């Protein structure tokens, strides 16, 4: 820990300096603090800036502790409350409580945040337990649970109108304080959590031998794991309840501690809170410095998110030990059809029939109606582009998902995880904020450019030698995390532009033109043909890089081509559906489950099923809230997420 002696004091000095920089205009209040006899400046100092400085230290320490415990108990160097979906779960629970049962909040936000965080953690751990807690799978599962929770929270926010935008601001993780109550709560949590962590240190050290080894030494593995995870969730959830979503401090603190040379579990648990406190203090000091000049509220949590994305990418090559072979297999032996052609024909016909039906029938005030030829002519120009766009984007996402799942040999790979959607969202947001009244074309090209940029980043990462495909997924996750951090920062501005972004994020087909829909369809067909042309790669690649390399497959070229195809498909579909839909994850799975095994059949089946799912989602989005339309991507998520979670928690075999 020699580096610690120089780095830690320097960091502490920097944190102090930044805080003093913000505090220098305000007069110091007398002690004890008594608002009656204080000037306005003294009140701002004594009940604003001072508790803010303390709470940054406390929250950082709590998150550092939580992250260190999670990383130790899961033996996973990229585990933290953000990557495991705990923070998002807590956030969803709070949003739900605010809207549906505000009375519950009377008992404080903490129990609700705790329940939500525990539910999310439980879900992710159940999924992880099926797959030997493989680090990459855990993070992917955590991100999926987190994304779903945020999607549901967004849905509820949208449904309840603009006044909930303040919730979005809270989600950004603002450290602004009005009194010392937050400090009191968090210091109690930190003291209790620290004591509990101290008590758990020795069992955790034994657990670091692995479950079998620890059980052999007489440790109650399940109990220790449960206690440690509950402790970590409790600590993280109390930060969520107090301050909102502060991403990645829990990831950064243990990682930095380790890189400074801390070895073993005791030092890690001891130093991580300290490093976490300094990291969050410095971030908050920077925000204060910016705020001092601009005066606009900019949540600190968004800034830590900005640091977190690149940090995750930096950590990836250091992630030791890939997944043991076979543990990523989601389910047992799937059925296999002898005549896949027949099934594909039936699905294809069904799709066309359904599309035709959906064109004709619709809801009218007071019931359902089949259109007569006259109204058909009136409705067709409105309905046809929507249907075509929905089906095409579903097919494109499904193709991208099928390719990624085969490329990475990981059944959890999907376009949502690739980061392209995140980049596309950033592009959309950038145009919304940069241009006063953007046209549809500008928004589309901005979105595509953002997606392309994320793709380029991902490609630069893939081009490196020996980069296993699953790490590429993690890089995608890092890009997504980065994007969502920037988005929450921009949303925090909280005006009409934020509203436009929020609407788009949940996906809307209502604005698409026929030309746009047809070009998307053409793209989907092109990607499908490309997939068929590369079907030999797609049959070899699931066997892993050593077999594929041994057979003379040019791995670099194959990865490049497939990622470009998947990325293009995702970027184009995202313009229509918004960044989240889960169709890219669901359709390839369904196609696989009905017995389409060979790559060409699998791809074709995925595309057809994806198109069908999106048609259903589109129909549901139009009809469920008639006469209002729900966003398409959101509706697809609400269908897809429960199914996905059911699939992942099922026992293999």
């Amino acid at each position: 820990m020699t580096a610690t002696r120089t780095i830690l004091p320097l960091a502490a000095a920097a944190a102090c300096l930044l805080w003093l920089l913000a505090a220098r205009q305000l007069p110091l209040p007398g002690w004890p603090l008594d608002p009656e006899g204080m000037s306005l400046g003294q009140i701002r100092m004594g009940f604003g800036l001072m508790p803010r400085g303390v709470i940054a230290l406390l929250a950082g320490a709590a998150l550092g502790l939580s992250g260190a415990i999670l990383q130790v108990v899961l033996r996973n160097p990229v585990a933290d409350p953000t990557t495991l979906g705990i923070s998002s779960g807590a956030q969803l629970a709070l949003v739900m409580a605010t809207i549906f049962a505000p009375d519950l909040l009377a008992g404080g936000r903490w129990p609700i945040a705790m329940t939500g965080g525990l539910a999310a953690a439980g879900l992710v751990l159940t999924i992880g337990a099926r797959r030997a807690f493989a680090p990459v799978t855990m993070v992917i599962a955590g991100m999926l649970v987190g994304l779903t929770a945020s999607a549901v929270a967004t849905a509820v926010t949208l449904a309840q109108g603009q006044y909930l935008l303040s919730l979005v601001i809270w989600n950004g993780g603002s450290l602004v304080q009005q009194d010392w109550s937050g400090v009191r709560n968090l210091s109690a949590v930190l003291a209790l959590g620290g004591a509990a962590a101290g008590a758990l240190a020795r069992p955790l050290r034994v657990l670091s031998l692995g479950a079998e080894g620890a059980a052999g030494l007489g440790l109650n593995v399940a109990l220790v794991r449960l206690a440690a995870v509950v402790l970590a969730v409790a600590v993280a959830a109390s930060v969520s309840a107090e301050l909102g979503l502060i991403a990645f401090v829990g990831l950064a603190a243990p990682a930095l501690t380790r890189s400074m040379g801390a070895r073993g579990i005791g030092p890690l648990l001891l130093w991580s809170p300290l490093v976490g406190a300094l990291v969050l203090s410095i971030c908050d000091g920077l925000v204060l410095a910016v705020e001092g000049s601009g005066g606009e509220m900019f949540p600190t949590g968004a800034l830590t998110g900005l640091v977190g994305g690149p940090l995750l990418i930096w950590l990836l090559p250091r992630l030791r030990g890939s997944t043991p072979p076979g543990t990523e297999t989601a389910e047992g032996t799937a059925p296999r059809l002898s005549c896949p052609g027949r099934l594909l024909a039936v699905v294809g016909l069904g799709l066309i029939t359904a599309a035709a039906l959906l064109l004709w029938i619709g809801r009218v005030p007071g019931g359902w109606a089949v259109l007569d030829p006259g109204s058909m002519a009136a409705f067709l120009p409105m309905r046809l582009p929507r249907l075509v766009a929905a089906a095409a984007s579903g097919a494109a996402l499904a193709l991208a998902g099928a390719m990624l799942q085969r490329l990475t040999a990981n059944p959890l790979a999907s376009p949502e995880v690739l980061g392209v959607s995140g980049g596309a969202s950033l592009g959309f947001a950038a145009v919304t904020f940069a241009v006063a009244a953007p046209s549809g074309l500008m928004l589309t090209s901005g979105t595509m450019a953002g997606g392309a940029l994320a793709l380029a980043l991902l490609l630069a990462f893939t081009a490196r030698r020996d980069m296993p495909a699953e790490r590429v997924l993690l890089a995608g996750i890092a890009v997504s995390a980065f994007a969502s951090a920037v988005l929450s920062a921009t949303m925090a501005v909280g005006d009409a532009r934020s509203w436009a972004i929020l609407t788009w994020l949940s996906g809307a087909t209502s604005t698409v033109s026929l030309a746009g829909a047809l070009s998307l369809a053409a793209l989907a067909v092109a990607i499908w043909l490309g997939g068929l042309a590369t079907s030999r790669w797609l049959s070899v690649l699931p066997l892993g890089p050593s077999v594929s390399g041994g057979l003379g497959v040019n791995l670099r070229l194959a990865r490049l081509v497939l990622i470009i195809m998947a990325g293009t498909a995702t970027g184009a579909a995202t313009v229509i559906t918004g960044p989240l839909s889960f169709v890219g994850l669901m359709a390839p799975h369904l196609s696989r489950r009905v017995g389409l095994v060979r790559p060409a059949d699998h791809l074709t089946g995925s595309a057809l099923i994806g198109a069908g799912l999106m048609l259903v989602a589109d129909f549901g989005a139009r009809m469920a809230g008639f006469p209002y339309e729900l966003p398409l991507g959101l509706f697809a998520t609400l269908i897809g997420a429960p199914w996905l979670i059911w699939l992942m928690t099922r026992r293999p075999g």
Partner: protein
Amino acid sequence: MTLFQIRNLSVEVPGRRLLDDLTLDLPAGRVIALIGHNGSGKSTLLKVLARQMPAHGHVAFEGRPLSHWRARDHARRLAFLPQTTPPAEGMLVRELVTLGRYPWHGALGRFGPADHAAVAAAMEECGVTRFADRLVDTLSGGERQRVWLAMMVAQQAGTLLLDEPISALDISHQVEVMDLVRRMCHAQGRSAVIVLHEVNMAARFCDHVVALKAGRLVLQGSPADLMRPAALQAIYGLPMQVLTRDDGLPVAIPA
């Protein structure tokens, strides 16, 4: 003739040197055992030879430096079996063996009569024809290993590199698989380099033995050169006794 010419080969990972300035020639047309203690670098050497791992130094395969080979040309001449074979989800035996033709037809080439013939011959040679329409994942360990061997045979490569092909099998399947590899090589003039744990298996089924210790060469020679107490002690750092079976073959056990 030399199969592999290895000059000053080193492989380093942070904090450890897996291969240390190794210089060695491997002869062609033989079944070569690579043996050594855990961490001696035997698997690392095999991975370098199979171009699965980057290394410093010079390695030539059939007289051409490894880096000069195009991926598919290399795969036409050399087939590699990793230590743990991945699950072949939903794949039939015939389909897996067919993948062995990839180096010949590539991503877009036609799967012609020659390819069909090679697949049929490979399945016949490895005795897996009767499993052809079964799912790979439903076979037993020994059967599955023979299917993977059939895939390598379908590659029609003159050289087979096998990383501990029998470590997960019971003793009867170990003998069966090693017997098959030996027959394949001797009947068709193929070369093989096999990483083995078991010194008696190496002595019984291989023509040539290369022993590594801590990333350096300690012994290269015939099985008879290996089966001497002094040689075995040098390799494993453990006193060993060599007994003679009734049929005259030597057997080594820890003394």
